[in-house]
């Protein structure tokens, strides 16, 4: 059997995803299922755009439910470690200097990642490169197209 990859979540992230799943199962799924049934009653489903659109919505809802169930079966909770550990771990907030600019972000598991809110996935090139690095170290982050040098100023 293929080994299932662990997905890292903070306690807050876990709560958000559990709430989302609960909402989808209890409220959204019954609502959309009813929408599909109502559309089916409109008649010939081969030319029924409301039926197509409702089916599409149901597909999206079911897809998200499956994804959330998979995440919630395989997650590993990120335990807040004392800052004294001195190196970057999942859950660390880091302040870095890159290309003359200061950037600050927290490294989280991929389901919680949102770069616009300064939450970077541990699976992103930056996340992967910084894990395990110490304050004061300079790390080269590379992809086939882009490379950048991140200097770690502080780990919180």
């Amino acid at each position: 059997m293929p080994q299932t990859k662990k997905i890292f979540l903070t306690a807050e992230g876990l709560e958000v995803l559990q709430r989302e799943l609960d909402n989808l199962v209890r409220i959204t799924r019954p609502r959309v299922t009813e929408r599909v049934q109502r559309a089916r009653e409109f008649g010939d489903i081969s030319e029924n755009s409301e039926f197509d659109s409702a089916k599409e919505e149901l597909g999206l809802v079911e897809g998200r439910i499956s994804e959330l169930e998979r995440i919630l079966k395989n997650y590993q909770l990120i335990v807040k470690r004392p800052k004294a550990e001195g190196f970057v771990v999942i859950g660390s907030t880091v302040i870095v200097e890159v290309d003359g600019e200061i950037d600050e972000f927290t490294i989280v598991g991929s389901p919680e990642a949102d770069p616009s809110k300064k939450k970077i996935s541990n699976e992103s090139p930056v996340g992967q490169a910084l894990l395990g690095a110490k304050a004061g170290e300079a790390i080269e982050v590379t992809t086939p197209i882009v490379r950048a040098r991140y200097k770690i100023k502080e780990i919180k």
Partner: protein
Amino acid sequence: MNSTVKSNQLIKEFKHDLSGLSVNERQVLEKLIKAARLIAPIYQKQQDPKYPGANFYPHDVEKTEIENAAKKDPSLLDPYTIVKRKNGKLISVPYHLEYRQYLLPIAKQLLEAAKITINREFGKRLELQADALLDGTYDVADIYWLSMRPYKIDIVIGPIERYDDRLFFTKCAYQTWVGVMDESETQEAVQLKETIYASHQRIFAPFHKIDFLDKIQVRVDNTLIFSGLITRFGFTSTNLPNDVSLMEKYGSEITVFKQSFDEKFKTLHHPIFHRVFEKNFQISYPVDILKRGSLRNTVLHEISHPLMRYRDAESRLKELFPIFDEISASVYGVKACGALLLKNAISQKELEAIIVMFICKSFSWWLDYLKQPSTIHYTKGYAIALNYFLENGSLKETDGISWPNFTKLFVSFEELATILERIISVGSYKEAQQFVDRYGSLDVFQRFQSRLIGVKI
């Protein structure tokens, strides 16, 4: 009436399904669209591509004559006056007096819309905008617009863009658009903006750099109508106001015009892609990924504009300023994608598509320029980028543009962004001129002319 027939060429209405809006919203839109249509005849009076000063100045006037006269009467170079000759002397007339008979029915439509809208904040905005058209208090209307909460309906109307004044890049031409927010596209644009701005804290920011990133709003609109200058230019996005001091205090609003963008992608950017890139290269880029890349390119350009604002740039670079202003935003926008890729906010393929569409857009601006010379600053700017990439070997021409070396090309974007920002932040006029002389040749486009036959503007 003859002017109405002609002015129809200066109005473009886009189709969009408004059934999701309330009856009240649709009624308001009807009034706003009526007001928008009435802007075109005013713009028609202002424009005249035959003259570098359009109809803003007497056609026989020399630039130096205006400069000398403006020392005694600065209103001659006010953005909202037209200059006339009276008894041999140059005088200025404010727009709101010169065009009053045309502005009255526009203000009437705005006030009627203000009366019926159930969004009181938007109603107040429309009232202030109507006042501004009739008494010239444009700043008051702009400040209110920038301070209000985003509303699904938006209208921008009045004298705004300066591109038709090729003498001084000062006089504003009338234009308007009306749009309805596309919420999901707006959400994505907001995320892109916040990701880029979140990591843009300079360690050493020059004192004359303007920082107002926390006051910038971005929206993607389903555009319903263009009227006036914007119709001629067919913009896909904009960032207003143009007044740097207003921006600094009150921020700015970036608007992407979705219908105008869709049309340009379909008729220009995508056909250009098939003509300038090698056949084997084209296979790897399906239309959807290119369209997303092109839209992101547009959003990135506007998001990057505020990152390149320096207080004295316009006065230092004079008529070269718009060239550097536009291309530095486009180049910086691509450079900023480096951080997006490293943070998994975009994929490598998506970055490649953004770069590819940057190249296609450069040819698009050239085709635009052939039709209307007043877009020269965009075309020159993109010529600078293409010549720079070709000179350092990060782009190669064989049978069309061959497979770009994206690694080398991205480094070139970073280098060029640094050079352009240096010129725009501290460079002298002479340095800027030398850079344009070295890299701004339009021959780069002409080499592709035969390939672009059949691409319609």
